[in-house]
């Protein structure tokens, strides 16, 4: 299963990386949205072990192909994975699974941006010239539309992942039973 997840991630990565023609007109869709939604969906799944290592590896992969300092996304994703683990332990309710996934996706995507701004601020404090992003420059409407879009997409990914993991678990159990 890990291999399949890794392959999906690589394909998503290249889709996102070469997204030029489709979304380059709107800066709010240019970020790491696809990868971020997939990684949050992974964090949300209980039976995916080692989500911190996933966060670390995917973060480093993103760092290689972005203008941020090396390690920025790795730190952001690890912290996010930690927050989601805590949140999940306290608030997960099986009745409102979709709503839970959506709020996690939405807040997770916003948290990534907030962490990114904090890391950029840190870069500036450390004396490294970086992009100057001011919150006042951001078109809030478009910003939230893009986040809702990616959060909905993330819910879809979450459902698919849920089904795929369940069927893989069933297969694994069946194999175990057969072996016994």
């Amino acid at each position, binding site marked *: 299963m890990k291999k399949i997840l890794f392959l999906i991630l690589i394909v998503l990565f*290249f*889709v*996102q*990386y*070469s*997204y*030029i*023609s*489709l979304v*380059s*007109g709107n*800066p709010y869709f*240019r*970020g*790491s949205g696809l*990868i971020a939604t997939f990684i949050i969906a992974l964090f949300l799944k209980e039976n995916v072990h*080692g989500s*911190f*290592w996933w*966060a*670390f590896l995917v*973060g*480093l992969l*993103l*760092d*290689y*192909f*972005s*203008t*941020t*300092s*090396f*390690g*920025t*996304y*790795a*730190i952001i994703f*690890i*912290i996010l*994975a*930690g927050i989601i*683990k805590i949140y999940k332990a306290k608030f997960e309710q099986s009745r409102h699974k979709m709503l839970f996934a959506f709020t996690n996706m939405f807040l997770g995507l916003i948290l990534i941006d907030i962490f*990114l701004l904090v890391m*950029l601020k840190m*870069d500036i404090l*450390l004396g*490294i010239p970086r*992009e*100057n*992003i001011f919150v006042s*420059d*951001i078109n809030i409407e478009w910003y939230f539309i893009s986040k809702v879009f990616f959060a909905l997409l993330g819910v879809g990914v979450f459902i698919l992942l849920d089904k795929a993991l369940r069927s893989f678990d069933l297969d694994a159990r069946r194999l175990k039973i057969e072996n016994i």
Partner: protein
Amino acid sequence: MKRMAKKKALRFYIVLILAIIIFAIFHNSSKKPFEGLVHTATKPFSSFFSDAGRFTYNKFSFFSSIGTLKKDNSRLLEENLKLKSRIALLNDIKKENNELRKQIELAPRDSFKLKATMVIGRDMSGLSDSFIIDAGSNDGIKEQMAVVVSEGILIGKVKKALKTTSYVELIRSKNSRVNAEITESGAKGIVRGQYGTSVIIDMIPQTVEINKGDSIMTSGVGGILPRGLLVGYAQEPMSTADQLFQQASLILPVDYGSIRMVWIVTGTKNK
């Protein structure tokens, strides 16, 4: 149960500390470990997905345009007739244009040494508006070189040159600054991006008249970019907040979404 929780927490701290160490080691360096190698290894995949993305985009555009085909056809026939009559007129204007080019020093494309290259990706963080092209320092690409399309239209500068790929910062990027001048009046200013959505020319003295449609070209001041590359056309001017200067937003002559091939200005030809 407690032991499991402790184990998870320990795993979290180990990975986080590892990431922080990596960040601390490399945050001050513009190069990332094995960056060239990673980009070289992923280049064939990037090119493939980039082409696939464009193919999909073109197909979408084609299907969405089917509904308007009939309308477009009759419009085009009408336009064709008009254009035929204009060809004769344009031949005359062409001569005049060449004269004007000499007068305003807008450089023709054949006066530069150009290196053709393909766009294969973009910056993943979305913070800077940049492309990744499939030529790097091995092909003679250096940082700050101008990147143009078509008839010498500037779209950006090389921000970072790796061995086989390079980052191109587009002029609409927030951090992009280009020394430019208004060709009609000769007034000098700075062209800068506005969070990846639009571009403005700034720092134009209040005494200068900016007209809608004035063309803006690189001024060559600073020696980084060559003089005479077209940047865009001015729209309505407005005063800056301190009333000392005026600025105008620009219409860019290029649709960045459809750019597939770009040219790097590696030098100028001596004639």
